């Protein structure tokens, strides 16, 4: 009994003693980043000398040390090619959060690479990136189709060759596409105008799901797509990649080659050239050919860069050209033509398979050149300059009489200059940020001689913006805020008949955002971003006045439209475990003065027949939804994935639904790896299932009801081989295995034809 009491007393005294003298249950959590670009450093070594304990950072630069004692400690962080950090830290609270930034060693070590100055996405918004294996699987597809692999992204398409990415229900001028850091400026206002970019130039496609107007300028309302080529080599090495893709449906084929190299003589000097072509014939539905749906496309890009510890420069050029056939029967003369084909549900013309592209068709070319430079004023401050020049030519040909058939009915030439100057700081303390000015100048001209009154006028646009952003980092916590002001003037002119029509409009707007990211523990993280965005009306929304050729619609613009203003809140919860990953994003987007094309219910009668009349109106809109994606490893061999998205969009003024909002959809699949080392995925069979619900939330007026729900089954087999010491990837995919006939609500040609039938695809990728 006494013994027990003594023991108890001893324990009490001991524990009291430790409480008063030294508490050894503290936790230190931290993050190690590159000072230059805030990219996480993986495998940096952390050592606490007093506690004699160490740890290595994970892929996100995070580390955690437990059971530390209270008091002063010396922390030492080392990573190859970087200056060692050694400092004294005071551990007082139960959980301590710290961020460390490592500076690159300025003493050039013969064996160490000069760091490639690749820009990282610095945002606290929900971000999804397509790269590596997933990007390889998407090779041969258009940008829109490739991005469908990201939960929350769908496409708004016109047939099977024209597809525009949709982020959280918004597309065209409500999202932004960046080609290697330059805002892609084409004629994106058109529903049937696909982005003028080839995803083959990228080794990474990133989707930012938040309102990012502050960072990227007006129109980034629904989100931003970054199409990023690989970083240029900075040392003597060569990399060549060859891609070949063949499809049974449409007899489509791609050839893509890229080559990058670095100079041995001049360290830091690197180059890359890349080219790709695609040719396709008429698309086949399960039962018939879609007449005149062939296409031919070519792209070319090149870059030359030089990096030194102080300066980085890059010159970049990309060229894109495409010729797209438009389904012949989708081009209708008047309303009764249109209604007849809709009632038929399929094209009348029985088309044979051919590669020939006839009218109606689109011919588009796009040039983009950029010059970029940055200069490190000191280890913490950096000056960035970027200039971009773009030329976009778009010609649209209709079926016309006589000599006019060889002339385009729409012929536009668009020049865009963009320039930005940004001062960035990345202080050793918790603060990083940037401020800058951003200029856009644009000139649009109708090339005379079309024989048609131009759909949009000639115009000159000037947009100036200034912005400032600041981010606070403390260990697992990141907080960010930004502010921007833009001013835009547009002066437009055109002839309608013999009358000159002129107008000048100015728009100005401020935007701001707040965001945060918290690493809850090594598995869970949470981001939240609240941002405003705005979009001035497009020229077509302001000035359309007359027949939309081929669409049997008369569209009326309104020169008095206001800018759209939105407030978007995106939250994302991410889990990364040993066996599973999960991404859950929820968002709400309130848009004031949302511009939409509304059927007036009236018809217009002419000698050509009757047409529906549509007008551009504004109303308040509310979008909200959920994206889910996750993976799970059942065994080393068997892996599963699932992703899905739900969007709700409403006109809150009239309590009605908008047209062309994606219906609920999900995609899930299983993959099984054969052979030894299943984790390397050398031999893999994949089966997946796409489920798309019927859009029950239809607008009050539509030419045809929403098509029924559909399910597709896809099957794939991929194999990796060693060929002359390098990796050769081969894959065979069967899409729409059961050759199901379906129509997609988001395809504008659902009125006229069934979607694409079964497709066998063979892919070959060799990197050497």
């Amino acid at each position, binding site marked *: 009994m006494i013994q027990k009491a003594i023991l108890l007393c001893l324990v009490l005294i001991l524990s009291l003693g430790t409480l008063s003298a030294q508490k050894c249950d503290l936790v230190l959590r931290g993050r190690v980043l590159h000072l230059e670009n805030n990219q996480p450093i993986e495998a940096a070594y952390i050592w606490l000398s007093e506690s004699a304990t160490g740890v290595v950072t994970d892929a996100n630069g995070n580390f955690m040390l437990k059971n530390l004692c209270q008091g002063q400690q010396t922390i030492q962080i080392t990573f190859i090619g970087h200056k060692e950090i050694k400092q004294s830290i005071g551990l007082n609270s139960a959980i301590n959060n710290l961020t460390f930034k490592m500076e690159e060693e300025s003493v050039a070590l013969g064996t160490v690479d000069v760091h490639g100055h690749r820009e990282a996405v610095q945002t606290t918004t929900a971000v999804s990136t397509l790269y590596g294996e997933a990007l390889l699987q998407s090779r041969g597809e258009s940008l829109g189709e490739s991005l469908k692999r990201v939960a929350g992204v769908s496409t708004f398409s016109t047939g099977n060759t024209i597809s525009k990415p949709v982020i959280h229900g918004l597309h065209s001028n409500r999202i932004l596409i960046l080609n290697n850091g330059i805002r892609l400026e084409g004629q994106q206002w058109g529903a049937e105008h696909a982005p003028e970019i080839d995803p083959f130039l990228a080794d990474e496609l990133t989707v930012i799901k938040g309102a990012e107007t502050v960072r990227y300028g007006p129109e980034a309302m629904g989100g931003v797509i970054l199409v990023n080529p690989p970083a240029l080599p900075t040392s003597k090495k060569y990399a060549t990649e060859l891609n070949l893709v063949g499809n049974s449906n449409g007899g489509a084929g791609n050839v893509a080659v890229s080559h990058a190299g670095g100079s041995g003589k001049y360290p830091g000097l690197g180059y890359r050239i890349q080219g790709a072509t695609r040719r396709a014939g008429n698309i086949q539905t399960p039962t018939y050919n879609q007449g005149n749906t062939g296409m031919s496309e070519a792209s070319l890009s090149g870059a030359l860069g030089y990096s030194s510890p102080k300066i980085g420069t890059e010159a970049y050029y990309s060229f894109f050209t495409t010729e797209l056939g438009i389904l*012949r*029967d989708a*081009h*209708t*003369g*008047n309303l*009764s*033509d249109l209604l*007849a*084909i809709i009632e*038929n549900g399929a*094209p*009348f*013309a029985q088309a044979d398979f051919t590669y020939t592209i006839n009218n109606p068709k689109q011919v588009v070319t796009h040039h983009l050149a950029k*010059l970029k430079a940055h200069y490190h004023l000191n280890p913490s401050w950096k000056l960035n300059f970027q*200039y971009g*020049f773009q030329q976009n030519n778009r010609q649209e040909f209709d*079926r*016309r*009489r*006589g000599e*006019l058939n060889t002339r385009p009915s729409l012929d536009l030439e668009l*020049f*865009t*200059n963009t*320039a930005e100057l940004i001062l960035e700081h990345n202080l050793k303390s918790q603060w990083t940020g940037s401020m800058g000015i951003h200029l856009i*100048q*644009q*000139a*649009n*001209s*109708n090339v*005379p*001689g*079309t*024989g*048609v*009154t131009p759909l949009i*006028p*000639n*115009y*000159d646009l000037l947009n100036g913006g200034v912005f400032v952003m600041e981010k606070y980092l403390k260990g697992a916590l990141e907080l960010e805020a930004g502010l921007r002001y833009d001013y835009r003037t547009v002066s437009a*002119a*055109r*002839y309608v*008949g*013999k009358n*000159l029509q002129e107008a000048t409009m100015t728009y100005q707007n401020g935007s701001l955002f707040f965001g945060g990211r918290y690493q809850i523990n090594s598995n869970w993280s949470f981001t939240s971003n609240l941002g405003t965005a705005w979009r001035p009306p497009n020229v077509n929304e302001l000035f359309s*006045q*007359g027949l939309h050729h081929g669409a049997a619609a*008369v569209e*009326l613009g309104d020169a008095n439209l206001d800018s759209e203003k939105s407030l978007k809140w995106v939250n994302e919860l991410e889990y990364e475990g040993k066996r599973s990953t999960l991404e859950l994003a929820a968002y709400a987007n309130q848009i004031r003065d949302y511009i939409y094309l509304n059927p007036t219910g009236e018809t*217009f*009668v*002419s*000698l*050509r*027949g*009757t047409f529906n*009349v549509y007008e551009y109106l504004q109303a308040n809109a509310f979008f909200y939804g959920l994206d889910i994606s996750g993976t799970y490893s059942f065994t080393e061999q068997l892996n599963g994935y699932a992703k899905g998205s739900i969007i709700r969009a409403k006109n809150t003024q009239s309590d009605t639904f908008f047209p062309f909002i994606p219906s609920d959809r999900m995609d899930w699949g299983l993959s099984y790896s054969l052979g030894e080392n299943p984790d390397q995925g050398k031999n893999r069979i994949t089966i997946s299932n796409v489920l798309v619900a019927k859009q029950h939330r239809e607008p009050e007026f539509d030419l045809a009801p929403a098509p029924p729900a559909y399910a597709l089954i896809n099957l794939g087999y991929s194999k990796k081989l060693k060929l002359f010491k390098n990796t050769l990837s081969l894959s065979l995919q069967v899409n729409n295995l059961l050759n199901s006939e379906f129509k997609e609500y988001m395809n504008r040609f659902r009125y006229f034809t069934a979607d694409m039938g079964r497709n066998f695809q063979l892919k070959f990728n060799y990197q050497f």
Partner: protein
Amino acid sequence: MKTLKKASLYFLALLAFGFASCESEDPEKENEGEVITDVTLKFQELNGSNALVGEILSFKASDPQGIEVGKTPTVQSISLTKGKNYQMTIEVTNSIEGEDITQEILEEAEEHQFFFLGQVFDSSFFSIQYADAGGIALGVKTNVTVSASTGTNNSSMRVVLRHDLDKNFPGVSNPNFANFVQAGGETDLDITFPVILN
């Protein structure tokens, strides 16, 4: 340092060039080459030996602004005599540009065709045959027979011009082919003329 200065100078020059070259062209007037503003149906009587006799009767549908919102076309009533045979010729013009589109239609006879529908045919008041040169089915020239006994004096005829159709589609050789949309192509004209029978 000197080369750096030079380089930046070139760079600035390039920039200035880029921004200066970027100005929109002055707009130009477009000749609306495709617009049809006037469609005239000309009737002349055919006698028993198929010879043209009597005066030419003209009935016109016109829309002087072409396709422009807010203006409706004016369509004259066709006035013919019961029990007679007529030769009908169609003239299509663009009065804005002073162009004769009939000529273009004749040149591209393989891609064009007129169809004749409406109550006059449904009630068998009219019967019509293509009478174009070369025996083709085009419809710029037709023979129209007006029934001697019609229940009513008022009726209507719909004239449709199709472009880019499949002329080998079954049924297309019939000028009253109501399912012309099935032969593909698109509509250039779709006019309903009131018909008065005396």
